[in-house]
């Protein structure tokens, strides 16, 4: 088909159009002739044969057509009498045809339209007219209708054809459309209102955000610390004013390069700790030095916390680096002071102890055992003073994480025996010793010895004069356990857990009668902890206590 069209030339098309125009004119002329009553019959050429159509047969066709159509069709005479009407019209009036034919048309017009319709019909005799009125329909339901009035000649006399079209559906559709339009308008109004509200909210939020940002900026820029934020991957993306003031660089120069300012000694630790925090989502904390604009390093304490969204996913990191240089230096001074003080206190104690020992030796040589015993007692007190000075120094070191350990491998039983020998010389308590096969321990021999001494000293301090103290060791898999048991006061259950806390001393009526700062067990616990061991106590008030620790064997 397409090909055929394409093959049709322009000339052929012109010819075809001309032929079709001729046919059209011919058909138009035929229709006009029929209308004018000049034709009685015509012959139509069908596919098979010629067929004759008379106008009578045409009338019949139209009549059926008119009867079947939905619209009401009425023909009235010049006097307004209904000459003809179809069933649809009678149905509209809910009357049989017989009660309609021959009646004045005006008769069926609702009272309120009578005048206007009469005028309309009058005018329609000269010119085609149309009007919409309401007909009382079925069950008095008002039916909107369109009246189309046309004049025509019937059997020589003038007549008027009136087509009555039920507009109910159209009106309903229009009404529906109107309603929909109203709804649409309402919806549009609502949408506009919502839009306006949204715009307002956005404006307000923007303003809030701006204020909040300004507020944050104000806060961040005036806080006496470096404030920074980082993206979820740990890349730093914001620094406050103080950072730029501190580094003496401008924004472009230092953008995201925090690590460039960290002291070379701490950069590796910083990278490891920061990566770990970012990977695990745990809080970041580190003390490190940062280089200022003059190239000098100042100590800072940096902390960062992750900010999570509602789904618990990290979206950013907030960090703060506080300048602790002065505190750090003050702390160093304090530490130095304590070191010097401790040294200066120990010097006279050394002299006193030395003279006492020399005197005791002399008295022993002379056979004056009473004087020698008195000097032994003085020596015990000097040792207590020495231990107190050492404890204070140790606590300071533990607090600063500076307690240093001198690691070596040593024979555990040798150490225990050495301490027992030393203690036996100065105590009245009999020491019962039950040592398991010896083993080698890796750690600070002096400090582990300090723990054993502390256990025995406590046992002596809190048990009656000359009450026995039992020292025992046991092997437990790859660990060695040491127990020091006394038969003294014992410790109330509720205080046993606190006994290893700093400055803790057992409460009781006689607490003040027992000397000490409450530091010995705290230091012991720290020492054992640092050696990957555990420390504990088992005690029944009134029956005595058993202190123990266990350490890994090499």
């Amino acid at each position, binding site marked *: 088909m397409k090909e055929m069209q394409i093959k049709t030339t322009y000339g052929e098309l012109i010819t075809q159009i001309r032929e079709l125009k001729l046919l059209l004119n011919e058909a138009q002329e035929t229709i006009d002739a029929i209308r004018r009553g000049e034709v009685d019959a015509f012959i139509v050429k069908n596919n098979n044969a010629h067929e004759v159509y008379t106008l009578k047969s045409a009338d019949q066709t139209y009549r059926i057509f008119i009867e079947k159509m939905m619209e009401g069709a009425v023909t009235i005479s010049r006097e307004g009498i209904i000459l003809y009407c179809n069933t649809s019209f009678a149905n509209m009036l809910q009357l049989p045809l017989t009660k309609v034919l021959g009646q004045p048309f005006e008769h069926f017009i609702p009272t309120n339209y009578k005048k206007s319709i009469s005028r309309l019909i009058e005018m329609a005799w000269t010119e085609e007219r149309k009007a919409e009125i309401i007909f009382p329909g079925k069950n008095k339901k008002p039916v909107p209708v369109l009246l189309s009035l046309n004049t025509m000649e019937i059997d020589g006399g003038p007549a008027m054809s009136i087509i009555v079209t039920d507009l109910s559906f159209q009106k309903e559709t229009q009404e529906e459309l109107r309603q929909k339009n109203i709804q649409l308008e309402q919806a549009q109004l609502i949408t506009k209102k919502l839009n306006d509200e949204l715009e307002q909210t956005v404006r307000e939020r923007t303003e809030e955000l701006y204020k909040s940002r300004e507020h944050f900026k104000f806060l961040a820029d005036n806080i006496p610390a470096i404030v920074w934020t980082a993206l979820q991957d740990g890349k730093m993306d914001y620094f406050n004013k103080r950072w730029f003031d501190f580094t003496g660089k401008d924004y472009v120069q230092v953008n995201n390069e925090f690590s460039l300012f960290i002291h070379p000694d701490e950069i590796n630790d910083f990278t490891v700790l920061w990566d770990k925090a970012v990977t695990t989502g745990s809080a970041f904390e580190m003390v490190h030095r940062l280089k200022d604009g003059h190239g000098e390093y100042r100590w800072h304490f940096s902390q960062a916390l992750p900010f999570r969204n509602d789904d618990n996913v990290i979206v950013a990191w907030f960090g703060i680096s506080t300048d602790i240089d002065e505190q750090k230096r003050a702390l160093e001074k304090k530490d130095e002071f304590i*070191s010097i003080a*401790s*040294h200066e206190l*120990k*010097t006279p*104690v*050394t*002299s*006193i*102890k*030395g*003279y006492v*020992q*020399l005197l005791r*030796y002399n008295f022993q040589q002379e056979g004056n055992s009473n004087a020698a015993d008195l000097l032994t007692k003085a020596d015990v007190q*000097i040792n207590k003073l*020495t231990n107190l000075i*050492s404890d204070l*120094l140790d606590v300071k*070191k533990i607090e600063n994480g500076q307690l*240093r350990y*001198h690691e070596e491998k040593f024979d555990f039983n040798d150490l225990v025996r050495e301490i027992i020998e*030393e203690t036996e010389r100065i105590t009245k308590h009999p020491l019962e010793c039950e040592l398991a096969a010896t083993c080698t321990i890796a750690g600070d021999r*002096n400090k582990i010895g300090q723990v054993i001494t502390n256990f025995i000293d406590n046992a002596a301090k809190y048990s009656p004069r000359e009450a026995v103290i039992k020292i025992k060791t046991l092997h437990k898999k790859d660990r060695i356990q040491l127990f020091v048991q006394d038969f003294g006061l014992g410790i109330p259950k509720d205080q046993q857990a606190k006994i290893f806390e700093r400055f803790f001393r057992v409460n009781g009526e006689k607490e003040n009668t027992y000397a000490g700062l409450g530091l010995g067990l705290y230091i012991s616990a720290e020492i054992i902890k640092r050696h990957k061991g555990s420390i504990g106590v088992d005690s029944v008030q009134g029956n005595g206590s058993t202190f123990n620790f266990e350490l890994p064997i090499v």
Partner: protein
Amino acid sequence: MKKIFISDDDPDILEILSLMLKMAGYETYASTNANDIFNCPAGLPDLILLDIWMSGIDGRDICKQLKENERTKNIPVVFLSANSRINEITEEYQARDFIAKPFEMDHLLKKISTILSGTTV
């Protein structure tokens, strides 16, 4: 008789140490000036007892000089101090041993005896 050179800036401690060591049968040379070790009239000692913090002199420097000197590098040095880092210092400056102040006389004598018998062998 083994000779021991003692240096401490506290004359009392110097006196105490001398008495204790003499009692134990050692020949002692005591000085508050540690530099005297380098021109000891009685010749080189068998052991040196050295304080660390002395007024004007640091025992660590003396130890370093001793260890750098061919004549003195094999003389055992024992630090004697109330310094809480004495064990680390001992290791760092290659001293033979240390004695923390205040000290037990028995402990001091035992340690010195052990070291001197060791060097004799």
